């Protein structure tokens, strides 16, 4: 599973032909070896004047540190643009950002919720991410972990079993999930909460600080990383 980070470019002259972004992730405090390998994407030409270009990058939820053998959930993101313009190419400076995470906890005092996700994005709603939340008392190897919901064939069974598992836990239920972004950026965030069992009580909604909401838009929490 990944999260998504939009990177844009605005043409400063009319003769820009293509713009590529070169990028790599390293553990904290390290620099990439560009000769060893990195990722490259072509930005999509969105048109307009001045011409806008965009690529939504698929970002990892951690970077493995080859020295320690462990995965670091916070890491450095290095990138530069390669610009093909007027028959020649040039590159921008190298930019480095610290990718950090923010853990969220949603407290369900009365046990109404059986399913909950966070709906969040870096900066604005260009590239939202939908991340399931889970009460850490649900065993990690349970087939009824929230992350298994989407591919679970018998959804009604999942609804029933998950309801029973949560019902057996003391209140309040505390659901957890994680968001990422570059340090200094702002994340926008809402909750999608649902009660999927019993069938006659099925209900779900999107929540922002002002109450129920459509997904996206201004009724959201802002997190400054």
């Amino acid at each position, binding site marked *: 599973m*990944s999260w998504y980070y939009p990177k844009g470019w605005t043409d400063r002259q009319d003769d820009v032909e*293509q713009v590529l972004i070169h990028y790599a992730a390293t553990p904290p405090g390290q620099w990439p070896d560009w000769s060893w390998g990195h990722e490259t994407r072509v*930005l999509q030409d969105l048109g307009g004047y001045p011409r806008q270009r965009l690529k939504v990058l698929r970002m990892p939820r951690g970077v493995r540190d080859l020295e320690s053998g462990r995965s670091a959930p916070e890491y450095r993101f290095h990138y530069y643009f390669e610009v093909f313009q007027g028959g020649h190419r040039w590159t921008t400076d190298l930019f480095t950002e610290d990718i950090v995470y923010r853990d969220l906890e949603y407290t369900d005092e009365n046990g109404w919720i059986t399913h909950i996700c966070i709906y969040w994005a870096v900066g604005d709603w260009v590239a939202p991410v939908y991340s399931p939340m889970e009460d850490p008392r649900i065993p990690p190897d349970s087939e009824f972990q929230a992350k298994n919901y989407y591919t679970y064939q018998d959804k009604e069974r999942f609804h029933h079993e998950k309801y029973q598992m949560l019902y057996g836990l003391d209140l309040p239920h505390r659901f957890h999930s994680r968001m990422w972004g570059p340090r200094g950026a702002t994340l926008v965030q809402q909750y999608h909460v649902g009660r999927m069992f019993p069938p006659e009580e099925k209900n779900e909604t999107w929540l922002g600080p002002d109450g129920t909401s459509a997904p*996206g838009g201004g009724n959201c929490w802002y997190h400054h990383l």
Partner: protein
Amino acid sequence: MVPPPVSVFGLRKTWIDPVPGIAMVQAHYTCSPTGVPPDWAGAEQVVLSPGPSRSAVFEVPRTVDGSTEFSLHHFFFVVGEHDRTTSPVFTEPIVAREVVFDDATGAYSSVGFIWSEADSPVPNYTSGVTDVPHVFRGLVWGVRGSTVRYGFHLLVGDGERWDDNGGHGWTITL
């Protein structure tokens, strides 16, 4: 300088809301060798852009188990006004085809290929390789039967130019 090899290609998938009131559509996708069922444990997930015509770009590996031909599996998770549904799983054969630039005059030192599915542009790049003088070859990928539009990135010395056939590109059916 030709960009380095890329491990994935972008493939846009589109969803049309069949009814009003759909709040969100999320796609789940994974790849497997041809004939092998999907392993959803490592699947990617992406939220489609807001509707009623929604889309997202899948990042599809260029090879699976060393092969350029494999299966792409995906389904949609749809949150409606009062319910949630999951689409059937769609399995599509991914194939690669070779495109060629014949540099008859020997004018270029390197050639790249810029390409995209014709109906739903997402730019991808392949660096050309040459096994005989002045003939540059590269691979383009997509769903079998689809059409890919491509152009050339022509490099010589410090100069370069992009040839997209006057905006029309060239096409190949996979």
